C-alpha cells in the first residue's frame, strides 16, 4: 500500500500559542454557538449543519467564520467537559472566536495567507504551531 503525502504550509496570525497535532475536522459552513453548541458532548447541534452531532473532541477544528450570538463561547466551554478540540483554526473571526479560544486555551490561529477550509480536508494530519502562527498540513485525507 502506498500513501501519497503532500505537505502544505499555511501562515496566519497567532491567537493562542502552543503546539498541537492531530486529525482535522473541517466545516465549510460557519459555526453557531449558544443553543446550537452542546459543550458537554462536544459537538454542534445546529439543525442543517454538516457537522451536526459530529464530535470535535481531540480534533483540529477548522472552520470558516463564527455566526450568531455571544454564546459562541460555548465552543470554549467544551474544555470544562474535556470534549474540546486540540486546536482551533478559522478563516476569519471576531471577539466571539477570541473569547471561545481564550476559554478553550488550545493553539489557535486565524487570518491565514490561504483559506484553511479550502486547503485542509477532514482527515488530514495537521501540525499547529500556535506561537509562530504556522500550520503544516499533511494531505492524507482519502480521495
Amino acid at each position, binding site marked *: 500500500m502506498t500513501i501519497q503525502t503532500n505537505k502544505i504550509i499555511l501562515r496566519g*496570525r497567532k*491567537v*493562542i500559542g502552543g503546539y498541537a497535532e492531530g486529525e482535522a475536522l473541517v466545516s465549510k459552513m*460557519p459555526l*453557531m454557538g*449558544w*443553543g*446550537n*453548541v*452542546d459543550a458537554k458532548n462536544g459537538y454542534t*447541534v*445546529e*439543525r*442543517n449543519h454538516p457537522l451536526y452531532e459530529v464530535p470535535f473532541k481531540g480534533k483540529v477544528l477548522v472552520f*470558516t*467564520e*463564527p*455566526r*450568531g*450570538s*455571544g454564546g459562541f*463561547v460555548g465552543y*470554549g466551554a467544551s474544555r470544562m467537559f474535556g470534549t474540546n478540540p486540540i486546536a482551533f483554526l478559522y478563516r*476569519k*473571526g*471576531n*471577539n*466571539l472566536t*477570541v*473569547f471561545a*479560544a*481564550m*476559554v478553550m486555551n488550545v493553539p*489557535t490561529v486565524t*487570518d491565514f495567507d490561504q483559506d484553511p477550509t479550502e486547503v485542509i480536508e477532514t482527515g488530514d494530519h495537521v501540525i499547529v504551531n500556535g506561537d509562530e502562527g504556522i500550520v503544516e498540513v499533511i494531505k492524507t485525507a482519502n480521495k
Partner: protein
Amino acid sequence: MLLNDDEKRILNGEQGEIAQRCMKFLADYGEAAGAEKLVDLDGTVDLHPGPGWVGTYGVSMEEIAKLARKGEKFKVPTFSDKDAAMNVIVDGWEQCGVLPNSDPAYREKRMKELQPFIDMGMIPTFSCTHYLVSSFWPAVGTHSAWVESSAIPWVNAVLGSRSNFDGSFQTAYLGKVPYYDMHITENRAATVLVKCEAELERDMDYDLFGWAVGEALGLKVPALLGIGRPTTTQLVKMNSALNTGGQVRMYHIPGYTPEAPTLEAAFHGRKPKETITITRNDLKRVYELMNYGSSDDVDFVYLGCPHYNIQELQKVAGLLDDRKCSTRLWVMTNPQTYKLAEQAGYRKTIEDSGATLLSGVCAGMLYGVVMPPEGKPNVMATDACKQDYYITGHCHPHKVQVRYGAMEDCVEAAVTGKWKGEWR
C-alpha cells in the same frame, strides 16, 4: 499590545487585585484579537450582568458586592442586557408556569445578587433591546462596548457608535476595550453592495431579508439598497437576523444611517468588492428554512424576539382582543415597555385572551424548560428567525419542530392550535 502608563499601573496591581485581573483580561484579550492598544470608552456599555466572558479572569458576585460597598462605579452609562446567568423573568414570572423561574425564592435571590451591579451604576433595563428604552444613546463616533445580536448592528449602523461584542464587567469597570475591528474607521466601510429586488413590505420581510444577507456575507460590511425606509420594528428584526444568519455587525443604508449620507460615503470612496442581489426567491428559501412541521399542530407560541416594542404590543393586543387562546402563548418584552403596556391596557387585553405577557428573558434563554422532552409541547410557532433557529438547539436532543410566520399567523395558531400560515 501597547499599554499606556496608567494601564500598566493597573496591570501592576496599583488599583487593587480586581482591577488588575480586569486589566489582565483586557491585555490578553487585546493580544489574542491582534489589537494594538486599548481605547477609552466614551459611549455606553450593554452588559450581561455576570462574571464576564472568560472564566479565568472572572469577577465573583462577592467581589462585585465588595466594590459596590466601596462606592466604585462603572465608567460610562451602563445598561443591562437580559440576565444570562440566571434567566430572571422580571415581570409575569408568577404566571410563567416553569421552574425555577416561577419560584419567588429563586427570583428574590438573584435580584439581590444583581443589586451590587445596580449600585455600581448599571441601569436595570434587562433587555436584548435596551436601546429602545434606555432613554440615552451614545453619540456618533464614540466607542462603546455592547452585546446581543440585534444590538450590535444597532449601535454600529443605526447609532454610529463603535462597538465589538464585549460589554462585560471588565470593560464597564475599567471603561476600556481593545481597539480593533469595529472601532477602526476603515473596518466600518462597506465592501459589498447588496441590491434588494424583493419588495419588503411586511415586518417579516425584513427578518427574512436580514437572514439572507447575513448568510451571504458573514463578517462583511454591506451597503443596503432598495430596502425602503424601515420602521423601528423592521430595523430591529433585520438587525437580529443579520447577526444570527451571519455576523453582520455594521451596515450602511445610504441616505438613512449616520455614517452614509451617500452611497460613495458608505464605501469610503472606494469601489464595492462585490455586489449581490436579494430576490423574493431568497426570502422564500429562508422562510422554508424556518417554517417546517410534520403536521399542522402547534402547541406553544412565542412572540417577542427581540423583545417587543410598544407598537408590536399594541398590534398583538389588537389581534387578541375578544379572542381566547387554545394554545399557550408567551409575549415577551422589556420591563419598561411592560409598564407602558400596562398603562395602555394592552396587558389586560393580552392576559384576558389567556396569553402571558412577560419581560426580561426569552424562551431560548430558558433552554428546554418550555418544551420538556416528555409529552407536549413539541411544536413552537414564532415570528423571529433568531428564536426559530436556536430553539431546536436549545431543546436538543428533544426533537422539536418550528413554525415561522408573521405575527398574525402566530396569533391565529395560538387561538386555533393549528398552523395556517403559508408563503405569500
